[in-house]
């Protein structure tokens, strides 16, 4: 039974090769669009995450509040603020060391290194927010806490970057939604066309006494095969073009913050998704059209 379905499916594609090709091309176009979207959105996501993660709020502690109890109190107050994801404490000593490490020259380090117990640095909390857009309100709230001397988060430029990322993501989504709609329309039309040409065939099968399942199965197999056929080119293009782009840019765009997603497992995931969507589109498309033709009037 199953071998008949598979055999008939292959035969159907072979003997209606022009129509199969036409349908497969429609699937190909759709999948290329989807592939573009998947690669684009995954990278924008990665960029946005990078930016958001690297943006931290620095909260320096007033010298008068350096006792452990008061520190703990301040930390608790910060954690209570809405949108705070993580708070990390750095002591005066760590802050000094970090600052000294920023100099490459040992001689300069020597000059700045304090020779007695005096340490001019503030103890500090570094605060990460849940979302990039929460940076400003959180920073303002932190500034109001008693004992916080200074708040810094890179100011306007950071914020505008975060906002820009957000609109890039939203804009991309809208474009892709529109393109996908177009693609679905294209596929539906194509399959409608191919099935219409085979309406007589289905009717004859019914005359000979085939029940609906018997007629439908080979058609579904055809749909799956067309889906697979249609996803070959998009998968090749995806793997090749992403590797090429990654190599060309060295995986970095504009600045080190814009790191591209590593190609290797990523392109395979995208290919898998493309194949799956291709098969699904072929299957659903042929199911809908065949079922429509199978309805006998009586």
């Amino acid at each position, binding site marked *: 039974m199953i071998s*008949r379905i598979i055999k008939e499916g292959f*035969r*159907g594609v072979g*003997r*209606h090769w022009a129509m199969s090709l036409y349908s497969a091309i429609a699937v190909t176009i759709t999948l290329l669009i989807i592939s573009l979207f998947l690669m684009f959105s995954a990278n924008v996501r990665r960029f946005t995450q990078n930016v958001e993660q690297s943006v931290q709020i620095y909260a320096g502690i007033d010298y008068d509040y350096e006792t452990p109890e008061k520190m703990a109190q301040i930390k608790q107050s910060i954690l209570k603020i809405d949108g705070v994801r993580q708070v990390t404490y750095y002591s005066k000593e760590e802050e000094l060391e970090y600052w000294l490490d920023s100099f490459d020259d040992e001689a300069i380090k020597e000059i700045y290194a304090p020779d007695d117990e005096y340490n001019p640095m503030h103890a500090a909390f570094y605060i990460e927010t849940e979302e990039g857009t929460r940076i400003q309100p959180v920073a303002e709230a932190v500034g109001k806490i008693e004992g916080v001397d200074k708040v810094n988060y890179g100011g306007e430029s950071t914020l505008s970057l975060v906002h820009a990322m957000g609109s890039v993501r939203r804009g991309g989504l809208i474009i892709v939604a529109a393109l996908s709609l177009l693609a679905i329309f294209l596929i539906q039309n194509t399959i409608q066309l191919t099935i219409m040409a085979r309406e*007589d*065939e289905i*009717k*004859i*099968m*019914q*005359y*000979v*006494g*085939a*029940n*609906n399942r*018997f007629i439908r199965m080979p058609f579904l197999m055809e749909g799956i095969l067309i889906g697979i056929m249609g996803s070959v080119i998009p998968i090749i293009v995806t793997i090749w073009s992403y590797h090429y782009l990654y190599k060309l840019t060295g995986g970095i765009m504009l600045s080190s913050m814009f790191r591209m997603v590593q190609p290797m497992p990523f392109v395979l995931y995208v290919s898998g998704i493309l194949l799956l969507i291709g098969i699904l589109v072929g299957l659903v498309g042929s199911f809908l059209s065949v079922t429509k033709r199978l309805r*006998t009037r*009586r």
Partner: protein
Amino acid sequence: MIECTHVYKRYKKGTNALYDINIRVEQGEFVYIIGPTGSGKSTLIKLLDGEEVPTTGTIKVVGIDVGKLKRRQIPIYRRNIGVVFQDYRLLPTKTVFENISYALEVINMRKSQVVKRTEEVMEVVGLKEKGNAFPHELSGGQQQRVAIARAIANRPKVLIADEPTGNLDPAKSDDIMYLLEKINREYGTTILMVTHDLTLVNKHRKRTVLLDHGHINADLAEGGYVQHDQ
């Protein structure tokens, strides 16, 4: 075999197609249904193969009340009857062999049996060498032979032929008639043939039912028909 009792058919659009049709066809009979265009011949065929339901009255074929069948039972019912059409209705993308074997695969016959039976009926209709040809590579007469082979492949008790010679020249029509007569004679298949080819009806004499404007005008057991008004 076929039993129509007080069959009326009125289409939804309001046209009346058949009035009080009573026909009884016994097993092994060969019957012509003749009549001009619009006389209700096609409607009668549609009632017999389950495509349409009679408005009133009952149609029984091989003991099955066709009008009472549910939609999903129609395919199974159709396995009991063979139907041959004027336009052959072969699957264009299947070979001759596949066209015939399809009718057998439908009834879940075993693969080896399918091959054997398909070759058998191809021999019966005289197309043994054409198994790998596609319908469009055959002449009209040959295509009709394939259609007949497909119709008789699963040994139906009843064969319904709707203008089987309608698209063929007289010589080819004769050949098809001889083939149908052979099937009727050798397998005892009941044949109901709709036609308006009066030459054929007069040459191969059989019981003839004349339909006119949806009424049965004559049912001549001795066969033959002369049109008086021409």
